[in-house]
């Protein structure tokens, strides 16, 4: 990992940019984060729809699976009817603890990098997580981590998780520029 201070001038400049109106260029520090968060492994359950998606083609989830009132599916066809706390059936059925859709406030579909960045930091939308909470969540949450061990030949987000955490730290430490 690069010593943080080498990046400081850059980060400082970018942080300034982050304070600027969203019409300006996005923060390069957020760019890789955006790449990860909009990968199908993440986005398929961070949908803006009343249903999850599946596959790299991001098709509507089979079996008419819906979001449901609590983001865990229909009242009697819950995510947990099929998805366990781990991948099962030779990883054909993906699974991780507390498998569910992200709430609609965390819907990332269709957001530009700037928009997603702002939404990600919005305490009203992100489950009241400050930047360090976000870092912690994306470093350690089992469902987030599943994105990097999705089983089968499912594609993974563009950076290894360790690298993602490093990039995320850079962004967090820079104040979360957008």
């Amino acid at each position, binding site marked *: 990992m690069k010593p943080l201070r080498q990046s400081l001038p850059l980060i400082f400049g970018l942080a300034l940019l982050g304070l600027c109106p969203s019409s300006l260029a996005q923060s390069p520090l957020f760019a890789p984060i955006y790449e990860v968060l909009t990968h199908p492994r993440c986005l398929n359950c961070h949908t803006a729809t009343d249903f999850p998606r599946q596959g790299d083609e991001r098709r509507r989830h089979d*079996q008419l*699976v819906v979001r449901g009132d609590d983001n865990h599916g229909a*009242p009697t*066809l819950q995510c947990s*009817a099929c998805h366990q706390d781990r991948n*099962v*059936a030779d990883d054909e059925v993906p699974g991780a603890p507390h498998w569910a859709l992200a709430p609609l406030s965390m819907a990332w579909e269709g957001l530009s990098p700037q928009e997603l960045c702002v939404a990600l930091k919005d305490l009203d939308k992100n489950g009241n997580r400050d930047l360090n909470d976000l870092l912690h969540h994306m470093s350690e949450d089992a469902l987030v981590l599943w994105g990097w061990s999705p089983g089968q030949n499912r594609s993974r987000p563009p950076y290894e998780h360790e690298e993602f955490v490093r990039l995320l730290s850079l962004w967090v430490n820079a104040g979360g520029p957008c």
Partner: protein
Amino acid sequence: MISLQVNGDEHTVDVPDTKPLLWVLREDLKLTGSKYGCGQALCGACTVHLDGQPTRACVVPVSAAAGHRIDTIEAVDQQRIGALVQQAWQALNVPQCGYCQSGQIMAATALLTSNPSPSDRDIDEAMSGNICRCGTYPRIRKAIHKIASEQL
């Protein structure tokens, strides 16, 4: 050794932790009403209730079922709505080959228990995980509506 509570009875089985609940029910407990259809939670033939929630037993590692209440088709008549579902299924000649019907009945029983007057959309959302190759869907829908309108 894993302890399971199935249809109100305690059972202890000596099986690998990863053996799916379905095969423990079928092979170790000789409860063959829950069917194997796909092994990947794609068809619903294996549906049982885990703490009252329809669950695909073919993908539940048996160790994950320990400590939960497991109910299967063999005892669904112990639930008032389960018995109503069975009776409506019989009256409307719902089953054809019948292989998927254990799962359908478990799913329908849970639906009607949670929602005594389901709309067509509610039925679609609750029942579309259960495949029937004989095409009994229209009768399943009709039977659910019949129970809801006449008995609940």
